[in-house]
């Protein structure tokens, strides 16, 4: 709150005072009051006006300056009311009350949306579990009556299953606090699950699945890690070269205080211009448009989950020759000691 602006705002007061002073001077002239009395009254008048304005200014300045400062300083400016002292002048009290009411109604509104969102997420999770039942049922029927089905049907079912997993982990990554559990997880076991899951796809596409030296244990949530690697492997299958020997190679190395898992393929690769953007939400890029079946969500969710788990993920690629994904797990010294 600046004095200059405040005074400018009070222009009407000065105009009124000027008129009043003129009237008083005229009255003094008319009644022929002597000059000393005139001067004394004038000084007193001016002094009082200045004091009144100053008192008013300083009372208000304290409240408004803290309000403005706090709003700029807080990262969640809607919490400003909590940091203010209740003002002792009428306008301030009014404003304080209004802020309080607005705040309250906003919180109610946000809460309402929050509830709706949780309801929706819960419904989606429930729906996902429901939809897995017919998929499981289909898999069993397929297995029991293999003579009546084409093998391709099961591949389509795997695709469906994969999309269902994607949305499940998207929902989970958004409110992750509740369902993950960090444990010591064997990389080879996770990779074995992924291999079995994608077996039909890999065989159908003639992709060699090569796994070397993955006998390490890392601290992570096994289900989440399975989803992460599964997405990467799925991408490798999806973006394989049309001809030639395709492979997906998974290796791990132990580096002092971290373990790095590398998933490498010799697929079509990612154009250099697209590389920095692959983790962005809904980014499909050149390959996605080309293959025409990309949602642009897979790697976004993967990145999200990696961030939550504290794993680093990097992608290296050369268009037309390879893509390498590096997952870095940190070792926890504290945990080692505990054991």
């Amino acid at each position, binding site marked *: 709150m600046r004095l200059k602006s405040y005074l400018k705002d009070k222009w009407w007061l000065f105009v009124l005072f000027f008129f009043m002073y003129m009237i008083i001077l005229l009255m003094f002239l008319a009644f022929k009051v002597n000059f000393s009395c005139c001067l004394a009254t004038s000084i007193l008048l001016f002094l009082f006006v200045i004091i009144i304005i100053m008192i008013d200014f300083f009372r208000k300045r304290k409240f408004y300056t803290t309000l403005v400062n706090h709003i700029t300083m807080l990262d969640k400016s809607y919490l400003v009311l909590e940091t203010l002292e209740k003002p002792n002048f009428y306008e301030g009290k009014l404003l304080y009350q209004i802020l309080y009411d607005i705040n309250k109604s906003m919180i109610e509104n946000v809460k309402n949306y929050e509830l709706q969102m949780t309801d929706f997420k819960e419904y989606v999770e429930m729906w996902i*579990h429901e939809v*897995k*039942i*017919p998929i499981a*049922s289909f898999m069993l*029927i397929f297995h029991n009556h293999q003579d009546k089905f084409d093998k391709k049907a099961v591949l389509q079912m795997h695709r469906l299953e994969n999309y269902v997993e994607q949305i499940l982990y998207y929902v989970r990554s958004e409110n992750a606090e509740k369902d*993950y559990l960090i444990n010591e997880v064997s990389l080879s076991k996770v990779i074995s699950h992924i291999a079995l899951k994608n*077996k039909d796809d890999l065989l159908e596409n003639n992709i060699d699945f090569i*796994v070397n030296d993955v006998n390490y244990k890392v601290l992570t949530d096994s289900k989440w890690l399975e989803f992460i690697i599964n997405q990467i492997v799925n991408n490798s299958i999806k973006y394989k070269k049309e001809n030639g020997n395709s492979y997906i190679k998974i290796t791990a190395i132990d580096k002092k205080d971290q373990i790095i898992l590398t998933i490498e393929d010799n697929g079509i690769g990612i154009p250099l211009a697209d590389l920095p953007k692959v983790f962005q939400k809904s980014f499909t890029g050149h390959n996605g448009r080309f293959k025409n079946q990309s949602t642009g969500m897979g790697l976004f969710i993967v990145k999200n989950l990696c961030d939550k788990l504290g794993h680093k993920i990097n992608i290296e690629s050369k268009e037309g020759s390879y893509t390498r994904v590096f997952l870095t797990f940190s070792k926890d010294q504290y945990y080692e000691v505990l054991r």
Partner: protein
Amino acid sequence: MSISLYKICYNNKKRNVDDIMKKILVIEDDLSIQKELASLLENSGYQAICLPLNQISVENILKVKPDLILLDINIPVSNGEVLLQEIRKKSSVPIVMVTSRNNEVDEVLSMSYGADDYITKPYNPTILLLRIGAIFKRMENHSEELVYKDLSFNIQKGVITRGEQQIVLTKNEMIIFHYLLTHKNQIVTRDELMTDLWNNDEYINDNALTVNISRLRNKLKEVGYYEAIETRKGQGYILLCD
């Protein structure tokens, strides 16, 4: 001489154990899955029993005297985890939890309540059978020796013995032979063999499977079994042993 005699005895004992079909109780609320699961188990040589939903209780379950229970977590009457805990108070029958809830917390909880395995829907039926087989194998705790006619097969060493003659199998050949042997007189599809191989971290492709089977056949020829593994066109392979 004494060794082969022992083997014959073992062979007979094994037959007897096999003759009693293992009873598997399926607790599952989805009728279509229940039906298919039962027929899957029956095709694989188990006796499958399903309880109607309104009769699911610890007493009824234990009355059936199952050798293994497949238990769904999301059954409507009472929660699967609660049921698991109650069964565990009275019996140590192997229990496999089958669920569509795919998260670590549920799995850790179930295992800590005493489940023997935890499988998430949708599962690969062959894998389910392999896991069930593994539990029975663990339970019976019998020696790592299987017998095919007058051949004895040591899984740990990967060696087939006939009298004085020994042949060493590679890991892949061993997995294939073991699968054929545990499913003798049944047609085994290439997909089943492939699943078992991949389940044992041998990620081989179609050609490699063909090569491995023909190598296995050659090795069996060495000990005098010329047509042990027959090919059934369009279906798979069969290891005949009468």
